[in-house]
């Protein structure tokens, strides 16, 4: 079937893509700048068409625990929120990781800490890729840079979540969530009719009862389990690294940026090249697993790397770890909902690495 072309907000694209992906349930709570996801789904009322359940929970805490319950039944379920709401979900995310449940969590990031601002930011990087909740867990983190990718990563997110029995986060931001672009939507998928053998669907005579839990009071058992989780994360690091490169072949300087910042930096590369500077861009698509190996390879031929983020400098730490001292790595970013301009990036690249 042909893909359907529509003009949509990023948030709307997530909602429509979830219906088309054959999701079984969405559980959310309003918060700017992502409320359109819940609003769109309530308006679309997919329960009447695909049978997908849409529920407005009493809190982000309840919503993520609804996701836990649905995922425990082997269903395709998702939630979305924005930064302060995602903080509230961290307990549930930790339980979901600990119980090895598949689900999709969309974070349309706004600036912070605290109530911060409703404007876009990328300051939840640490929270997303370094844990966020308690315990030794990771989740796969996908960083869309367009409305198209906000739609595409719903399907990809579910695919990876079920493949590895792990929560997947789509780390977007208020700019991509709110802006309108054309988007090609996939045809409607049927909802699943068979469920994983671990799911709580009612104990059949043919199998032992299924238990969804993250508890193991025996230290030996808990250690073995945590090691098993780490093995899974290592497998994810080997198999699921995704990134995009722009004009890195002959680059002397590399910009590393994801999401909205990556779009800005694509223009920065053009501006810099017009001034005779050999600048390239690497855009991580997966933030966990991080494209460390590729950045390390590129570093062999670079004079410097600039990590460009709408934060006070978070991803820059992973870039530093990736190159392990091979080349100078610096951070440039704006905060508080301000999106850097392509020109600013070039000026800073020059003042940091060339004029200095």
């Amino acid at each position, binding site marked *: 079937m042909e893909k359907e072309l529509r003009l949509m907000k990023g948030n709307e694209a997530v909602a429509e893509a979830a219906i088309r992906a054959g999701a079984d349930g969405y559980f959310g709570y309003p918060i700017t700048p992502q409320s359109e996801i819940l609003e769109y789904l309530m308006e679309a009322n997919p329960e009447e068409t695909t049978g997908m359940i849409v529920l407005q929970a009493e809190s982000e805490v309840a919503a993520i*625990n609804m996701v*836990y*319950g*649905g995922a*425990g039944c082997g269903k395709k379920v998702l939630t979305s929120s924005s930064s302060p709401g995602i903080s509230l979900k961290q307990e549930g995310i930790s339980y979901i990781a600990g119980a090895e449940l598949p689900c999709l969590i969309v974070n349309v990031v706004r600036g912070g800490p605290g109530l911060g601002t409703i404007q876009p930011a990328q300051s939840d990087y640490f929270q997303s890729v370094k844990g966020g909740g308690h315990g030794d867990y990771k989740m796969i983190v996908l960083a869309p840079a367009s409305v198209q990718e906000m739609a595409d990563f719903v399907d990809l997110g579910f695919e990876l979540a079920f493949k590895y029995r792990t929560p997947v986060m789509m780390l977007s931001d208020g700019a991509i969530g709110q802006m309108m672009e054309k988007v090609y939507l996939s045809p409607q998928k049927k909802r699943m009719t068979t469920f994983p053998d671990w799911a709580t669907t*009612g104990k059949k005579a043919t199998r032992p009862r*299924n*238990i969804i839990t993250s508890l193991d009071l025996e230290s030996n058992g808990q250690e073995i389990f945590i090691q098993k989780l780490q093995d899974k994360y290592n497998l994810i690091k080997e198999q699921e690294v995704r990134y995009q490169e722009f004009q890195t072949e002959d680059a002397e300087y590399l910009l590393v940026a994801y999401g909205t910042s990556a779009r800005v930096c694509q223009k920065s590369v053009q501006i810099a090249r017009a001034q005779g500077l050999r600048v390239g861009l690497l855009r991580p698509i997966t933030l966990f697993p991080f494209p460390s190996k590729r950045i390390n390879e590129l570093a062999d031929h670079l004079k410097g790397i600039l990590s460009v983020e709408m934060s006070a400098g978070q991803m820059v730490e992973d870039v530093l770890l990736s190159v392990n001292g091979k080349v100078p790595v610096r951070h440039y970013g704006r905060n508080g909902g301000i999106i850097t301009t392509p020109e600013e990036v070039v000026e800073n690249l020059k003042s940091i690495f060339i004029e200095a």
Partner: protein
Amino acid sequence: MFEIAGIREIVKPENLAYRKSDLLTENVMSYCPGCGHGTVHRILAEVIDELGLQSDTIGVSPVGCSVLMYNYIDVDIQQAAHGRAPAVATAIKRLLPEKFVFTYQGDGDLAAIGTAETIHACNRGENILMLFINNGIYGMTGGQMAPTTLVGMKSSTSPAGRIAKTMGSPLKMTDIVATLPGTYYVTRQSVHTPANVRKTKKAIRKAVQYQKLDRGTCFIEIVSNCPSGWKMTPVQSNKWMEETMFPVYPLGDLKTPEE
């Protein structure tokens, strides 16, 4: 699982006066002697068994003494984060509406940290059975004050007794949820005498059957004891419960369907 030495010698077929439901596993329960949890587990398992619902049941266990409920009742069970069982059960029931879904929570879980989830699941009229074991104390963490602790009652965090002015008064969650249009059947029972066990079992059986009608939340509070936390013998604890708990938490139906 650990096993009490010699228990299989004692539990010989010829010594059995009563046979447990097949839905209770062989695992030795971790509950203290005299605790009501084991009895509630037993009658719940019996009802599910008698109604032939094993393959159609999904339970949600809490955080607290009954966190390991999944080791004792042979049905599919999800273990929820502290206080979140009603939210977890909401999604299970919405996504598998043909299944019998129940939650099992203590007073700290349901009436303190999970107050919002409890009230809102009931207010949406989620078609689930909520079992609420109220013994007025945090048992598993070692006897701290709960929202349901009586005024004057001693606990490890109210060593001089609960003072209403600074620590609040007993929170009557069952009375609160009974006022919500979303609840269909709300009752308060106990399991400290054979007669009360039978009444509670009857209430659970009714609630399970009501779930097929899809009329709203069924909520059963079971006022129970905590001999360890209360620092009493099982017999003393039951007597104290009758004399001191029941005046504050009177047994009986708070809301019954118009049949």
